């Protein structure tokens, strides 16, 4: 089975939308998918996730984006990840960055399967494609 690994670093919601789309789409294509959440993105996977954050240069386009998502019946990135997980996608939080931010396993929400180190991620991703978002 072909494999896809996604490193999710960005904590802005515009970049989390393609994470949801690609993860769900790859799972639907029968790929073995793992997501490694690190950096600023960790703040979006906690039990009290950070409010939506948008890049400054596109802030004035956010209403258009949100309206378009609604009009196209597109689910939120969280719902896309939930759908992806129902098809077997695994989501891991980076242990180093979690510690740096003072986050323990119990601080993460139900999207996160486990807190793992980079060796686990590299071992799981070997021989497949990797995206950095």
């Amino acid at each position, binding site marked *: 089975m072909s494999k896809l690994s996604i490193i999710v670093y960005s904590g802005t919601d515009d970049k989390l939308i393609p994470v949801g*789309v690609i993860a*769900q*789409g790859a*799972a*639907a*294509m*029968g790929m073995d998918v793992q997501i490694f959440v690190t950096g600023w993105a960790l703040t979006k996977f906690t039990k009290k996730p950070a409010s939506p954050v948008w890049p400054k240069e596109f802030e004035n386009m956010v209403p258009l984006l949100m309206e378009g998502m609604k009009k196209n*019946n*597109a689910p939120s990135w969280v719902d896309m990840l939930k759908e992806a997980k129902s*098809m077997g996608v695994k989501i891991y939080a980076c242990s180093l960055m979690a510690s740096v931010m003072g986050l323990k396993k119990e601080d993460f929400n139900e999207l996160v399967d486990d807190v793992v180190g980079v060796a686990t991620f590299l071992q799981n991703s070997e021989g497949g494609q990797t995206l950095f978002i």
Partner: protein
Amino acid sequence: MSEKEKKVIDARGLSCPGPITNLTKAYRNAKNGDVLEIWATDPGFKSDIKAWIERTKNELVDLKEDKDKIIAVIKITAKK
């Protein structure tokens, strides 16, 4: 193929990757010989269904577009 095994998956109004997701869910419960017909309005579906077929090695029996939807007919042949 018996007509009673044909199943329609109505994915109209769903954005990418909703139609392919619903197809995959139906595929899980399908058997070889089953025929699935998917209705979609997402403009990416026409190329996505070909990619799905290429990956899963099932058979695309028909792919057409009528006034308000894309219709793909698939025969399940690659279940192990």
